[in-house]
């Protein structure tokens, strides 16, 4: 199994989720993050003090999938999250040694 971490634009999350569902991947976990990268942030001005805000709000999506469909999953995420503009985000793949479904105690591919 592999853990896919995808950092995407917040308003593309729904798209990505549906694309993964399309592949039969229905388990995933998301959280809000702040990204730094090539995409510049913006200026904010509060009562005469100007601040360069570097971070850009992004969403991190994590999903653990069987080895067989990693490539496919990465592909559909890529496609579904793409706007073609800077700041579209990254996908990282990590190896998973073990996985457990707490409710049933199942492990491995059965658990995800």
């Amino acid at each position, binding site marked *: 199994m592999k853990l896919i971490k995808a950092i995407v634009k917040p*308003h593309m999350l*729904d798209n990505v989720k549906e694309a993964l569902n399309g592949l039969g991947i229905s388990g995933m976990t998301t959280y809000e993050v702040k990204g730094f990268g090539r995409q510049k942030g*913006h*200026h*904010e*001005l*509060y009562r005469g003090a100007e601040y360069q805000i570097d971070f850009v709000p992004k969403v991190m999506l994590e999903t653990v999938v069987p080895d067989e469909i990693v490539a496919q999953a990465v592909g559909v995420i890529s496609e579904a999250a793409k706007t073609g503009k800077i700041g579209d985000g990254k996908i990282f793949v990590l190896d998973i040694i073990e996985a457990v479904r707490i409710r049933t105690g199942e492990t491995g591919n059965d658990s995800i």
Partner: protein
Amino acid sequence: MRKLLLTLTTFAFAFAAYADEAPTIDTGDTAWLLVSSAFVLLMLPGLALFYGGMVRAKNVLSTFLYSFTALTVVGVVWAVIGFTLAFGETNSPFVGSMQYFMLGGDFMTAISGTIPLSVFAMFQGMFAIITVALISGAIVERMKFSAWIIFMVLWVIIVYSPVAHWVWASSGWLFKMGALDFAGGTVVHFSSGCAALALAIVLGNRKDFQKAPILPHNVTQTLVGAGLLWFGWFGFNAGSALGANALAGVAFANTMIAAAAAGVSWMLIEWMHGKPSALGVASGIVAGLVAITPAAGFLAPWGALVLGLLVGVVCCYAIKIKFKVNIDESLDVFGIHGVGGFLGAVMTGVLAVEGKGLISGNSAQVGIQTIGVLSAGLYSFVVTLVIAFILKATIGIRVSAEQEAEGTDINQHGEKAYN
């Protein structure tokens, strides 16, 4: 009743001329009107909270600013020209004179009824402000701020002030026709509801409307806003008695009862179809306040109860129409202020006691009410359409799709609400 008292004022002036007896200020009435004016001002932060809680966090400051700039921009416009356009003495049925341009002339010493004219002018000014701000519920999350500012200036001059003249000035044509509007069901609510609809049509729907969930970012804000609105509305309605008298007492009681009743009936309808929600109770309260506005001084308490229960049901269904017709009048300005204001105006003709309404023998009133409210609404709708199209064709009326996705707080105001 506001108009009745204005008439009385006119009579009083006339009488004074004959009898050489100057009209005098009543401190109790003045105290109540000073307070009422402040109460209505507080409805603006209230409205900002009410609307602001219903939008997404990335647009909340813009939403607040629609109300706060109504306070500042319309506050200035009213002092400069709005008041005199509405209430400057004249024989014109359509618009006031320039007598009080820049609040000059005898503004600082004149008396209106039993209160200083300055107090009357400020009380009326608060109505102009809230009416404009109400409209903003239809344009949230996508209108350009610059377009909003210009819209407000034009609308209060071209729409609000004249319509207020029609209904409340003693030479106004609707006033003369006998239309009853105690505190602004026609002038404030139906007219802002129609303007909201027109603006929503020209602006177009939000990208996510009926596509992705648009969840209210903070419902407690909306509830607190509803509470402030209710509080302020006592100034709005009972203040429209223009004195601290029995009429004010009745208007106060009716306001209380109608709001409570509509809060209950909206809740029950929701419960029938599922769960009773906080947003529903708040919406019902506001609907009740809207409907009782034109009627507050004309009904008996049982009438307020009936009207409140009715409007809670009607508006609870009315706000669903926008999904059917696919017009994103986002926070239901038409669905609540338009529909509720219309219902209140017409029902005033039905339920008014003391020989004023159908129920007490005056069968003509319903027709008069209907003509009055429709005229004002139609005028408001058409002029708003024209203003909106001109704005669209010139400086542009809507932010770009990208800006909409990013949120209007950052790109229109360069700031974020929550850090």
